[in-house]
């Protein structure tokens, strides 16, 4: 008999899946966004369109979960268009036709800036991370951007990242616009294992909703960010059928060698 309560990860995917509405078009970043979009496809969004940086416009639900956004064979038969990276990263991101974008973040700060590049000095790093790829462009141009952080590890949540791989609201208080970014662009929401945050008018995170059972104190401890006390509506938990779908997708991810799934 399977556990009727979702794990943190299952709840995260369920929450994130709500970002992907049926009949909408979402620039879907690597990793958790792809997995969450698949949950959405199976739950409520059979005609979700995902745009991927290499030029793929993917609509429907492919037979297999791709290991990454560039595993073309996994999408073939469910793509409306094979375009190129200038189509996706320039035209689609900047022309106002997308409903939303979502990217995976592993080191994020209060302003929604993301570091996927280096820990330490750029030219002599203590840790060299992969770099941003197209997530930089998504964070630069997208108008309704959701960040998804799959980890509850407090080290993932910074006060201010030392290297901005993908720009959030920089240092807040209009500094993003002052640096030349279009008004209205940048992160609007952050989804974490403990709850969701919105970015307020100063460009800082503000706790929105908590996952069932989590407290403001938990969120404060995880992020290290100042969070005011207050009542926060709980995020809806999946019902039994929905949870079964989330688990099915996580099993697919394990079958397709998703490293984060490993025990």
């Amino acid at each position, binding site marked *: 008999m399977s556990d009727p309560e979702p794990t943190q990860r299952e709840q995260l995917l369920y929450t994130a899946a709500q970002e992907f509405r049926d009949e909408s078009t979402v620039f879907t970043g690597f990793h958790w966004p792809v997995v969450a979009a698949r949950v959405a496809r199976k739950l409520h969004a059979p005609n979700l369109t995902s745009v991927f940086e*290499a030029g793929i416009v993917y609509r429907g639900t492919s037979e297999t979960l791709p*290991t990454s956004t560039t595993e073309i*064979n996994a999408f073939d038969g469910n793509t409306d268009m094979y375009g190129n*990276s*200038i189509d996706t990263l320039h035209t689609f991101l900047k022309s106002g036709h997308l409903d939303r974008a979502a990217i995976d973040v592993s080191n994020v700060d209060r302003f929604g800036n993301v570091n996927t590049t280096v820990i330490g000095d*750029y030219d002599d790093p203590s840790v*060299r991370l*992969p770099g941003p790829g*197209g997530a930089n462009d998504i964070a*630069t141009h997208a108008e309704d951007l959701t960040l998804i952080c799959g980890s509850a590890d407090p080290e993932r949540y910074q006060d201010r990242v030392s290297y901005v791989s993908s720009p959030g609201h920089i240092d807040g208080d209009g500094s993003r616009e002052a640096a030349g970014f279009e008004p209205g662009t940048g992160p609007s929401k952050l989804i974490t294992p403990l709850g969701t945050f919105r970015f307020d008018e100063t460009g800082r995170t503000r706790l929105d909703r908590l996952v069932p059972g989590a407290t403001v104190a938990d969120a404060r401890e995880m992020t290290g960010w100042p969070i005011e006390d207050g009542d926060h509506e709980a995020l809806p938990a999946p019902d039994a059928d929905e949870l079964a779908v989330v688990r099915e997708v996580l099993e697919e991810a394990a079958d397709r060698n998703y490293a984060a799934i490993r025990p």
Partner: protein
Amino acid sequence: MAVSTMTTAIEAVDGGDVVYVGGFGFAQPFSAVHELIRQGVSDLHVIRSSGGVLLDQLVGAGCVSETTIAHCWNAVGPTPTSAFRRAAEDGVPRPITVEEHGLGNLVLRLFAGARRLPFVPAGPVESTGQFENQSFSGKFSEVTFDGDSHYVMEPLNPDVSIIHVPRADERGNAQLTGARAEIKHGAMAADTLLVTTEEVVSSEQIQDTPDETVVPGFMVDHVVESPGGAHPSGVLGCYGRDIDYLEHYGEVTGSLDDFEAYLDEWVYGVSDRAEYLEAVRASGFAEVSP
């Protein structure tokens, strides 16, 4: 233009060259890169959108001194590319520089190279790491247009570009299906263009499907038939990504010794792609047939 052997084609790459290597998560010219490693070409400046396992191998083999990339990791997992990290963090086996760009800016620079434009506008970059990092801040030049200040970037024009495609004819007309990423621009930006192909097909077959041609033969310097040449990445219509092999790669290349053992087994230990594919099969990985 004539059909070349891999050995001859790769001899067109000199130490110190700027080399664009095509493919994104798919259609990566692994067989060409293995031959580069075997020929011991050094000091390359490698341009690649998504560095990946391919760049990891080139860096780990000591062929590279500079990189211009948007990211580098093993897309399966995802897991880190350890040889790339060792070079960037510890200078092992050689130090590398990493010029990092957002992918959108990188592909525009290749576009500008392919179209021989003198420069191309960048997206907003101020306050980002790509802009503030001193090692390549000079890549963004300020110009004033219509009263506003903008940054522009110089084009990328590789000495040599290498792409892998499912089909090409003896004239070099190279065809691709599926997402195009920046492959066409990377190919067209080069002085010298090498095409590796799953199959050399007849010119009649090319002329039956001219919509799929990504570069015309008159731009191509060498065509090399290399079935299975993109393994472990996939080629649409030919074979899929070998995710078990890529996971295995991540697992057995974590240390310098293990990485060198990997090269000994899979690159130096085979003389050509046929032997490599035989080893892939013998080790229980995917059956690769174009």
